[in-house]
């Protein structure tokens, strides 16, 4: 009737968040290897990302089931569930991006690669801030709000870079329309990670203010 699940649940949530951070770091390594044309390494990292993403799903389901089965935290159960499910969309998006790079192998010119890496850095920073905020959601909601507000600022930087990238892609007359559209697609899916982070951060701010 009154089992203390706190350690088990907090450990699970922390490993869920750690996995997202690992996926985030792996994607950066994947991109660096891609620009060095180490495609074998890219494939290896893509598989690692997929494994971690599956683990994230498993952990999230376990945590959600435990919270509902044991009727824990009744007043913020819905918010925790929402936060975990939204957070889980981020590794999903990164996994999809990794697979896209691995299978479609877009031809990115060297002058664009720096901006692609910058875009990846900003998206990565959004995720790191979001994970910090999410960790504090269970302890100190003021810190959560602070971190989540920073996510929006970094996301704006990512938006600027993605706009610059699109301008450069479409102003390059060497490439045909198909290549341009293909490259734009990769800019958009990388920017989507930052956008998703911002959406989750917004949700976290609301949940933190409410509780």
């Amino acid at each position, binding site marked *: 009737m009154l089992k203390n*699940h*706190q350690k088990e649940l*907090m450990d699970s949530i922390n490993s869920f968040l750690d996995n997202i951070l690992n996926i985030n770091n792996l994607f950066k390594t994947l991109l660096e290897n891609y620009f060095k044309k180490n495609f074998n390494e890219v494939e290896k990292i893509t598989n690692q990302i997929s494994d971690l993403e599956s683990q994230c799903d498993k952990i999230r389901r376990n945590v959600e089931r435990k919270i509902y089965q044991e*009727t824990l935290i009744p007043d913020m159960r819905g918010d*925790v569930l929402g936060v975990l499910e939204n957070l889980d969309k981020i590794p999903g998006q990164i996994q999809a991006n990794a697979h896209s790079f691995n299978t479609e192998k877009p031809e990115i010119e060297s002058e664009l690669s720096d901006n692609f890496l910058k875009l990846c850095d900003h998206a990565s920073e959004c995720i790191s801030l979001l994970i910090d905020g999410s960790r504090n959601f*269970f*302890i100190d909601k003021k810190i959560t709000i602070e971190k989540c507000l920073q996510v929006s600022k970094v996301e704006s930087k990512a938006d600027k870079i993605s706009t610059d990238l699109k301008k450069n892609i479409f102003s390059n007359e060497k490439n045909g329309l198909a290549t341009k559209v293909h490259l734009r697609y990769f800019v958009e899916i990388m920017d989507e990670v930052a956008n998703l982070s911002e959406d989750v951060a917004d949700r976290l701010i609301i949940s933190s203010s409410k509780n």
Partner: protein
Amino acid sequence: MFEILLIALLAIIVGTNDAANVFGSAVGSKMLKFKFAIIFFFIFIIIGAIINAKYPSGVYRNLLDSYPSLDQIYLILIPVILITILSLKLKIPSSISQSIIFSIFGFALAKSLSVNYDLLKKLIYFWLATPLLALILSICFCYIIQLIIRFLKLNVFQIDYQVRLCLIIFGCIAAFALGSNLTASIVGIYSPFLDLDLNVFNFKLSIDENKLYFFGSFLIGLGALIFSQKIVQSVGFQISTIKPISALAILLTQIFILLSFSSDILISKINHVLPFEIFAMPLSASHITFAGIIGVASFNRFREVKPLHTIKIIISWFLIPFSVFLLSYLVCLNF
């Protein structure tokens, strides 16, 4: 036999109505399951009744100079039972102790008996003061609990576990405190006739003080077990939304007030400190719970308070005792 049936009926009604006061906020906030809450309520209400009910029971004995005879007690109880059933139907929590006192008052006026007005005045003062005290205390307890949580930097699952544990422990203490209070309200009216020898289906049944309190509290528990689930699950939500920490603050308020007015040891210690004297008396747990809920609702600037139901309850605090008094007076004039 008729006396036993009246006590049983009243006890079951009270159990239905008052289990909500102890575990209602915990079950309503989904921190405790009803079946566990009611088991704790059952056990501790009986213990509380046997240990402490004799102290607040004395009030009934001292209210009238010449107490009604045993065969007249039903005239006092029937108006109480009728009005309480009506208030339950209207989903308004009522105070059995207040109803009984005002029914005795109506009886005394109708039968031209002399009433201890000094005692009656004191009771009314305390009945008006205790909800106010509950309102202030619940706010203080809410602050203290939140300060402790912030100081200890607990995560949400630790808070959940600690609050759940406290709700069970304090719920049991509140049931213990309520046990004396409620049982005193129900069987206290028979307190001048303790050591009753009753005929139950040709069996001689002798009832002493402890048996009477056990019997009363057992039936309160039974009433709670059988009929209170809906009320327990909806308590609070009729007035305002209750969060687990608020539920704990309300429970602590109940314990503090109910024990202060039922435990002889606590009363003598409190009287050393206070400039005026308090004494053991049956209080309204429903009024204390209501005031506690309003107190914790002040944290959200009363945004979640349902004004219509709140006003209805406050009006009922005056209307119910008056209705019982009037009904008792009219019944006693005719019988």
